[in-house]
């Protein structure tokens, strides 16, 4: 991914730098809160979830609210903070049920079925028509690429040092 193509947003900083900064700060915070002393699977899992959400959140923050998907991600995080995890689990279960029902119900057009799947993948894509969904997907892909690159670098530097 080329930097120039990425958002050049509020200031002169690029998407990568914004995301990197936020992500590393979050990483530091996480490491401080829960130092990697024990390697229990549960602990690992918790850290994993936190790091992943930190990555998503920092990416969404880097994009701010310019895109539908970033707004959806940030809204999701806000909801998480306000509600208990239990509630979230319940809603996710309900959503899964709904998803199954949808699959059983009708056969949709191939393109529609794919579009729906894409909607599920891209955050906040449920309420968008195909045209804007494709646009959001393009931007989301860009940001995902950035995210992967940064995280890979971080992981590499971690592992090498």
């Amino acid at each position, binding site marked *: 991914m080329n*930097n120039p193509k990425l958002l050049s947003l509020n200031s002169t900083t*690029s998407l*990568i*730098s914004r995301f*990197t*900064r*936020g992500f*590393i*700060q*979050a*990483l*530091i*915070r*996480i*490491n*401080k809160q829960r*130092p*990697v002393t024990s*390697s229990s699977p549960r602990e*690992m899992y918790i850290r*994993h979830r936190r*790091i*992943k959400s930190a*990555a*998503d*959140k920092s990416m969404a*923050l880097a994009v701010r609210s310019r895109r539908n998907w970033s707004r959806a991600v*940030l809204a999701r995080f*806000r909801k998480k903070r306000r509600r208990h995890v239990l509630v979230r689990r319940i809603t996710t279960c309900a959503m899964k049920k709904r998803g199954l029902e949808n699959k059983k119900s009708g056969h949709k057009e*191939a393109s529609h079925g*794919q*579009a729906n*799947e*894409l909607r599920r*993948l*891209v955050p906040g894509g449920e309420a968008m028509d*195909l*045209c804007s969904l*494709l*646009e959001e*997907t*393009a931007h*989301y*892909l*860009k940001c*995902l*690429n950035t*995210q*992967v*690159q*940064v*995280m890979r*670098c*971080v*992981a590499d*530097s*971690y*592992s*090498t*040092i």
Partner: protein
Amino acid sequence: MGSGDGHDMGVQHRSERAINCPSSGTSSNQLPKKVATLATSTMSMYKSSNVADPFFGSNWEPIVSLNQSENYGGSPMVSHTEFSNSPYGAIVMENQGIRNTSHFAQYPSDSSFVELVPKLPCFGSGSFSEMVGSFGQPECGQTANVGGPRNYISNKEGCNERTSTNGALSQEEEKISEQEAIEASPNGKRRKREPASNSPFNPTKNVEGKQQKDGESYDVSKELNEKKPKTEQNNGLSGKQVDEQSKDYSNSGEAPKENYIHVRARRGQATNSHSLAERVRREKISERMRLLQELVPGCNKITGKAVMLDEIINYVQSLQQQVEFLSMKLATVNPELNIDIDRVLPKDILHSRGGSAAVIEFGPEMNSSHPYPRALFQGIMPGIPNSNLQFPPLPQTAVDNELQNLFHMGFESNLDMDGLGPDGRLKPKL
């Protein structure tokens, strides 16, 4: 008059063609011109000199097509109906400069034309030459009203023009075969918006395109349509024209009355308003798909929405999985080495310089943690130029202290993060 008519017609053709080419969009131009030419016996109005009669037969079409593109100027010309009756009808329609819905696909016979004449209040026994003259008139600035465009009025009264046109039409009818004009371009109807194709267009097209605002003329034209043997053409045309009309109004690029995105119906394509919107939507979607094709690696050769969508979905899924794996990997990593990561990242990602190599040199095991930070810092400092993050050089302190100091200093100096508290703790930005 008769001779003048022939000349007039020829002139009209020329002038109209000339007019059509440059300004198809200005409906007003054509209508007034035509009417004026017809109505006015002033040959001076014509740009070109008299043309032989043979012109009429073949030249009508361009004239007709001219008017077709216009229409919206909406000059409610009464002569509308009359024109339809005769081969001049095409011209009349043009003159009318009305919307597409024309019912004039057919040219009425002389008799019918004659019948019409009395119906039009303005029209009397005009001279053909006048009509021709009005047609040939390119200068008409606007379609104006039934009475005729301003130009006409300047030359003549509106009514006079009308009448003359009527007369001219009837005369011409004999000379020119309506059928030819009408049948000449069956496609004419569809192209309401193709100014370039005006010339080849049939008079039928014009007929369709022209809509008479004048109720009277409108009725008359309808009558004519019904009578004519070419009704089928007309009917089909009128049907389309209705759509076209509605579309013209909504989509007219020539008379942008509304803030719509004007879409033109292309040659050979349906001009239904729904299909136009559909086409725009489809084009948007295909444009976005092309964009995505560039983003997703290995999709250059893929053609087709379904396959492309599949690829996109797979790619998004794979990227999301990679994020998961990487976060899992990071979760197992010792966090004590964050400092160098800060340094390293910008280098690796943004600058891809060899500085990162210097960092890597230091890196034996993560687990051996404590002794590292200092060494790392020392080693890193020289090796790592300031990155975009612009962290200042760190003093040599204990790992944790160093980390904290680094972050504090770095953050305070460089970060414009809102969430950074006074104690250096990062606060989530929301």
